[in-house]
């Protein structure tokens, strides 16, 4: 049986690993390569590494870092940050990365996904959408944002996710900006809307603070990807940095129990 994917999401900022809250206040949590080594030992399902500087600074992907990450990583690796051309995507895949994620650049130009899918195959193309709840007295629903949530766009996130799926995305990652670093649970409503609207695999990021939160997500959405940052790098109420990940037994129990409620 295909299993849900439980995915640590690591953010790279100025060469170090950080964790943000509400996409702000990056806190240094360690060295990226060291984190990969720990997740290797813990046999995590996948790993997602996002360079949060590259798109904002308009910089090229950091190929030297990617090569080191890929060489170390013994599980599927998804890398994102600063990818704006099919050539860059192909170069990253050639370094030993399974999937590349595109966010800001896809919002500017969904055709880019089509070109990247043509170069590396759509199974390796991940579109990450940063989504936040609309605020204001009568506001309802969600808006799409980019550049670490500093730019807000008019497109409806669900319709846009479907457009990216049609353009060539093999997986959609929904990142709930309001939930980032809050550790109070996923936005289940948003996750369910996306699950129902999409045909490609879905991964949800933002808000997980405990394995129970992952259980709630899987009970609502079935076999999808559950990604988390804070949960896997912090421990305890004071957010002490401690890289952690459920054991295979914990994961089995969690997934079995959640899917029986789906």
């Amino acid at each position, binding site marked *: 049986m295909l299993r849900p994917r439980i995915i640590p999401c690591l953010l790279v900022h100025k060469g170090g690993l950080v964790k943000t809250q509400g996409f702000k206040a990056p806190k240094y949590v360690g060295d990226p390569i060291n984190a990969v080594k720990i997740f290797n030992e813990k046999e995590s399902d996948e790993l997602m590494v996002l360079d949060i500087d590259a798109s904002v600074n308009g910089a090229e992907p950091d190929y030297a870092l990617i090569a080191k990450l890929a060489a170390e990583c013994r599980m599927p690796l998804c890398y994102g940050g600063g990818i704006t051309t099919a050539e860059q995507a192909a170069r990253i895949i050639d*370094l*030993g*990365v*399974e999937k590349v994620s595109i966010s800001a650049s896809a919002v500017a130009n969904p055709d880019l996904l089509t070109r990247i899918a043509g170069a590396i195959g759509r*199974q390796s193309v991940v579109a990450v959408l940063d989504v936040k709840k609309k605020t204001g007295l009568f506001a309802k629903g969600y808006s799409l944002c980019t550049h670490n949530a500093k730019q807000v766009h008019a497109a409806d996130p669900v319709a846009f996710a479907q457009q990216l799926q049609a353009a060539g995305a093999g*997986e959609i990652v929904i990142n709930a900006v309001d939930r980032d670093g809050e550790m109070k649970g996923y936005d289940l409503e948003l996750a369910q809307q996306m699950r129902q609207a999409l045909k*490609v695999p879905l991964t949800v990021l933002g808000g997980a603070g405990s394995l129970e939160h992952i259980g709630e997500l899987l009970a609502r959405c079935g076999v999808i990807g559950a990604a988390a940052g804070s949960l896997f790098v912090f421990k305890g109420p004071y957010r002490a940095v401690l890289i952690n990940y459920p054991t295979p037994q914990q994961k089995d129990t969690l997934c079995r129990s959640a899917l029986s409620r789906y």
Partner: protein
Amino acid sequence: MIRIVDYGVGNIQAFMTMFKRLGIEASRARTAGELNGATHLILPGVGAFDHAMQLLDDSGMRPELERLVTKQQVPVLGICVGMQMLAGGSDEGELPGLNWIPGRVRAFASNPRSNALPMPHMGWNDLATTPGHKLFADFEPSPRFYFLHSYYFDAESRADVAATAEYGFAFDCVVSRGNVHGVQCHPEKSHHFGAQLLKNFAGL
């Protein structure tokens, strides 16, 4: 020494890293000459079927590869699209495959038992292995492997199937016939399960 056929697609580096960890000598081959002296061959592959077949043809390594596998009986392991290339052909493309294991590559999307499921088939799945198969020596029960694909190998003969996995139905995810072996999943990214499989292959 193990030669990894580097014809321009696939994650060569991941195999190099894995074999290095296992203490097994491996190198990449980019020309027919570099295939020389291969005791084992790894045929990786990602992306579209025709694209991969075309690149293999263009690499100039195909005649030597065919000679090593079919005449010299050098063990070969096809991985992902590299496994699909072992078949006679694929619904994804028009070019013929290597046809080393009779079968055809089909789309999950055109199978009524799987067409409603998310595509691609992505993530960790359990393998139902053929008891006693040499690729699965010293395996724990129900090993898990990482998959990422939308097309699957449909073997003509059940005798050539070494493992199946469930995605709407039990599809053939490991095939094996004589010295030719293929796995749809990614042993290079499947933790200790994958390491054990590559080790077993290297020991053939």
